[in-house]
């Protein structure tokens, strides 16, 4: 078994005719199974790199700041945020929808691409799923803590009690509670199931007792016998099948928080598909935002996360971005065509009201910017890709802000109109959630294989039991 640095150099190049014969491989440079285990495990086994400590030095304080802000919030009251009448929800729910949206790409990549037999997913799904979990963690903070009496939030759970009173199952918020918690649980199961064989790999490679113990326990004694693979593959297939409708339902339910209300600008049937498309859009942007630097750090990963992957993801961003753009225009059209003065006004104020800047930022980031991906150059030039995907990241936040805060600021009664202004607590809390997200992700790439080894091995040509046999 060679060590990481040795295997970092590419193996011998493909010859010209091989290039013609072989269909573009999913793993470049004829990497062997051994190399894959060696290299990916080495990231976990090798000594901790400096940049890792540097990044942690940034993200951990941010995380602590986030926690401090939340403590202040709970101790003092929701008033420390900028929320008011009429803007009862503002950055809290904006950030919730923003994070939960980001999460969706992970599940999507794992589940939908798995069902559609898109083998190229194998090299990115692990990281994407991890991203899902951490995003949902960040998202979960807000609905849990935005309530006025956090210590009473357990009333959301249908627990028999001495007051003999129950929940209102007609409330979209309760749907949310069930949807988000289900989503988180299933994502964890899905992610962990995928990890088991790779944990076994780490178990069998590691030297120290403590690692032997931890990875040993986590691997659950996986032996890789085909009698296990049989059930394993079935379970994985079922989970993928369950996650696909789940991920669609979760963001639909989130959109119900708005769509089922009577508020002009919220009360629209287009929300569920438009929210889901938006989520995929933002989620893929976030995957790229993270994977590109990760691969920059671990150069040889380019053999696994190929430019082809990036290209494909950019195409999806282009597609979903255009869907979102279509939804924006359709909203405007319906508002006009519906001839309801309140709806009409709501959309007019989005574009030309006091929050015009948020609306146009959203429009530019989500609709204009992705159009660059029509050109292969922008899809395949990593620096450009990374710059361009920052627009969807920001744009999707603006979208939620526009939908939530600016709609509430001007709804039915001009007498009750009022502006929302974020407070320093709002801002620091939001920044802090990025710290939390970063911390979790850094821990992940340090201690768990960030690429699904057994699946990558399975897509190698020599994994085919009939590899090299004459076709008859």
């Amino acid at each position, binding site marked *: 078994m060679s060590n990481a640095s040795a295997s970092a150099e590419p193996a011998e190049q493909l010859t010209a005719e091989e290039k013609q014969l072989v269909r573009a491989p999913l793993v470049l440079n004829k990497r062997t199974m051994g190399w894959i285990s060696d290299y990916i495990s080495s990231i976990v086994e090798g000594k901790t790199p400096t940049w890792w400590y540097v990044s942690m030095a940034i993200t951990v304080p941010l995380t602590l700041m986030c926690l401090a802000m939340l403590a202040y919030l709970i101790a003092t009251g929701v008033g420390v945020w900028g929320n008011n009448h009429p803007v009862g929800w503002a950055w809290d729910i904006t950030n919730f929808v923003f994070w939960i949206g980001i999460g969706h790409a992970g599940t999507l990549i794992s589940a939908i691409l798995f069902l559609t037999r898109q083998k190229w997913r194998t090299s990115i799904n692990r990281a994407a799923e991890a991203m899902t979990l951490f995003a949902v963690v960040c998202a979960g903070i807000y609905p849990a803590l935005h309530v006025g009496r956090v210590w009473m939030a357990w009333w959301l759970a249908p627990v*028999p*009690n*001495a*007051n*003999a*009173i129950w929940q209102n199952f007609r409330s979209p918020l309760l749907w949310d509670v069930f949807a988000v918690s289900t989503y988180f649980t299933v994502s964890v199961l899905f992610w962990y199931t995928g990890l088991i064989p790779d944990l076994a790999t780490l178990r069998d490679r590691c030297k120290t007792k403590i690692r*032997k*113990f931890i990875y*040993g326990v986590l691997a659950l*004694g996986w032996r890789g016998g085909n009698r296990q693979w049989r059930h394993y593959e079935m379970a994985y297939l079922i989970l993928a099948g369950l996650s696909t409708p789940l991920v669609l339902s979760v963001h639909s339910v989130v959109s119900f928080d708005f769509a089922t209300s009577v508020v002009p600008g919220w009360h629209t049937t287009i929300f569920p598909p438009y929210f889901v498309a938006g989520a995929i859009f933002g989620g893929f942007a976030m995957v790229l935002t993270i994977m590109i630097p990760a691969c920059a750090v671990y150069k040889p990963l380019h053999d696994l996360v190929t430019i082809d992957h990036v290209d494909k993801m950019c195409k999806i961003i282009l597609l979903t971005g255009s869907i979102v753009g279509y939804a924006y225009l359709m909203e405007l059209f319906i508002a006009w065509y519906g001839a309801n003065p309140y709806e009409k006004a709501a959309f007019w104020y989005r574009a030309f009201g006091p929050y015009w800047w948020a609306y146009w930022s959203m429009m530019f980031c989500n609709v204009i910017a992705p159009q660059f991906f029509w050109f292969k150059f922008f899809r395949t030039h990593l620096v450009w890709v990374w710059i361009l995907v920052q627009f969807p990241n920001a744009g999707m936040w603006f979208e939620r802000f526009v939908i939530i805060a600016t709609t509430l600021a001007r709804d039915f009664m001009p007498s009750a109109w009022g502006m929302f202004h974020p407070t320093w607590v709002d801002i620091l809390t939001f920044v802090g959630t990025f710290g939390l997200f970063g911390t979790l992700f850094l821990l992940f790439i340090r201690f768990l294989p960030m690429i699904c080894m057994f699946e990558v091995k399975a897509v190698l040509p020599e994994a085919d039991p009939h590899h090299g046999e004459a076709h008859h």
Partner: protein
Amino acid sequence: MANFFPKWTNWLPLKLVICAGAIVTFLAAGITYYFTPKYTRVGYEPTQPVPFSHVIHVQQLGMDCRYCHSFVEVASHSNVPTTQTCMSCHTQIKADSPKLAAVRESWKTGDPVNWVRIHKLPDYTYFNHAVHVNRGVSCYSCHGAVNEMQVVYQHEPQSMSWCLDCHRAPENHLRPPSEIYNMAWHPPADTTQQEIGLKFKEEWEVNPPVTCGGCHR
């Protein structure tokens, strides 16, 4: 080289699962029993500044509840007697019993006797005695057989679900108006509480509120 994990660890997971299951079950059972009003409130029996015995006053002397709790029929709040009320008898009877020191003290100084409160609803719950006693609900239904209590203690959980039980089926408690303050009343032999209750429920159009507004304002 041998296994890293010894053999016995193979059964560990199963054992853990069973233990966890057991613990959860016990916790749930414990909480339902120990942390609900049925347990936390019922039986609360503080020592009072004056060892007043309902047995003597009600059981033996046959005093009516309303002699001391004089406003129970007209007010939401069933008042505890003023020192004056006690003294109106105890200037003659047991005028110098040491047990009554606190009462005499209060009468002298004008400072009230601080009776320890037993039945306490939360501030946001507005219970009205008058409407209950005037509409056929006996003291007994909520306070138990006070006449037999040497020292008063809480007899009913008085939790929201407990209130609702009666508000949903008042027939289980309605009585003839004459028997409201009769702690020892039992339905006549030829009939049952249900029958009587239903009869009065019909007659008086008893229809207690079960929505929040009935008690929370």
